[in-house]
């Protein structure tokens, strides 16, 4: 259930995050090995392809270089996206990792064609999305913020 301004989200699926042994909650989502060695922008360029992508807000088409294999990391810690703002080239895959001890989600402020809910983003989990169109993509964690305040972030995608 997505958060909407004016009310807290009903948490029907959120067990407590800690048991006696620490991170008690597991997830079916892939849990990667600890990261940070692969920090922002460290992945190598694997391939490029020129795609014609629709520009935001009109029917014009612009040529955007899609850069396959580039990824940029964002860490979702308690209760902040780090870094809050990233600027990436179109075609970049952004990888969010829940590096905190709390549950979080990643929800776009506009639209619902990307993002991950709490159940797919437990501590240790990661979520990936490739941004192909230039634009500004604000997002937030509904557990710890609203669309404009608290745990918020922005992906700025350049052409």
């Amino acid at each position, binding site marked *: 259930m997505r958060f909407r*301004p*004016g*009310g*807290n*989200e*009903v*948490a*029907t699926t*959120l067990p*407590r*995050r*800690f*048991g*006696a*042994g*620490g991170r008690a909650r597991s997830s079916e989502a892939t849990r990667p*090995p*600890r990261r*940070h*060695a692969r*920090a*922002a922008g460290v992945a190598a360029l694997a391939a490029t392809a020129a795609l014609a992508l629709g520009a935001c807000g009109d029917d014009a088409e612009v040529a955007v270089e899609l850069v396959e294999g580039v990824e940029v*990391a964002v*860490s979702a*810690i*308690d*209760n*902040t996206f*780090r*870094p*809050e*703002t990233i600027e990436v080239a179109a075609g970049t895959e952004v990888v969010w990792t829940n*590096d*905190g*001890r709390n549950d979080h989600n990643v929800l776009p402020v506009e639209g619902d064609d990307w993002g991950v809910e709490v159940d797919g983003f437990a501590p240790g989990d990661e979520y990936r999305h490739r941004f192909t169109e230039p634009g500004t993509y604000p997002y937030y964690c509904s*557990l*710890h*913020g*609203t669309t404009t*305040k*608290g*745990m918020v972030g922005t992906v700025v995608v350049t052409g």
Partner: protein
Amino acid sequence: MTRIRSPRRVLAALLALGLLAGACGDDDGGDASPTTEAADDGGSGEGDGDWRTLRVPTDYETIQAAVDAAEPGDLVLIEPGVYEEAVDVTTENLTIRGLDRNEVILDGGFELQNGIRVLADGVAIENMTARNYTTNGFFWTGVTGYRGSYLTAYRNGDYGVYAFDAVKGQLEHIYASGSPDAGIYIGQCYPCDAVIDDVLSEYNGLGYSGTNSGGNLLIVNSTFRYNRAGIVPNSGSYELCYPERETTIVGNVVYGNSQPDTPAISVALLGMGNGILLAGGNRNVVERNLVFDHERTGIGLVPFPEEEANDVVPPQEDWERPCAETRDDPLPERSEEELALVLWDPVGNVIRDNVVSGSGLADLALGSLQDDLASLGNCFGGNTFETTAPAQLEALAPCEGDPTATDWTTGALDLLELMAAERPPSIDYEEAPTPEPPAQPNMPDAETAPPRPATNVPFPVDLAAITVPERPEGT
């Protein structure tokens, strides 16, 4: 809705209209109920200016509806009742007040997340109770200016009262119990510019927790008892703005924090049996507190062991960097070996003039997994105590003059043994035997006091005037 600007304007309005409040057309629309709108009797002082009173449920059926209809400076006044709501506040400078602290109850029914969550600057919450929420009773985040006064928060699934990434705050006259994390929490802020004054926190995992917070952060005149651990400033890289530093803890009563049957997160299990535990806390001042009856230590300075950390301990020259500057830092590039286990040592703390007794291991204690404890720069002086670990701690690390002892090994804490010890397991917060809170004091003049948004907090504290508290009767 009639807009009330001052008592004189109220009087003029009454004279002109010949009635208290006309059921005028409701320009505010929204969720206003058809009941007669309230005309406020005004007030004086900080409430002067352009503000209204929005009553729940007389004017608005729900707290959320009133909050959504309110404008900056308004007073949302809640009448007695049980409100099964999770309220979000996004309008700044509101005052949200219950008419009776013990009879205005927000109940999450173990399904709703937060009683009231505030994401706007300057919001004050007064005189009410929040219980049975899956996360927090009262929650401010990302704000400048917050105040919680005369609040009761019990049996909530994370924190009772939670201020995160928030600065310029006042938490006062609060009762918090039955949360697995902390009854009261202020975290990820530096400088925090906040005061915790006259709170009672009991039957929680931690009475107080503050991760990566500090900087003009005062905890004074309060009682922390019957938690797993009492007051626990701590550091960790799972939140920003590490490490914890510069919290001032003065004039508190801290006792019996060895409670085995509370809900508890892992840190609370690890810290169980300690009164004031600086777990990777730095440059804190702990002074003139009364601390007694703890299974392990009265006042303990220990490392916080963080497994699978996100970063290592930053150099001390970075500790004065405000939180706001760290927000867009690039992710640290560290090896998995570096992050496998990071020990946040306690550094530069001042422990003086406390009265500590009845501790199972030591009234005053300092421990680390490194050999050179002296290099951590902590000091102890003028305390009343019976035992320390290591022995002669005030001679080893005095606050004034040179050390008169050098043996750091005799009577030292065995931290590895302590960390490995079995602790009574956590009890789910819904099931734990958290006592129903006794009736708590109401704020004065809840019906008539003008709104007082959190624009002038924290309130001044005369630290020098605070003395060691008397031992409570019956203890």
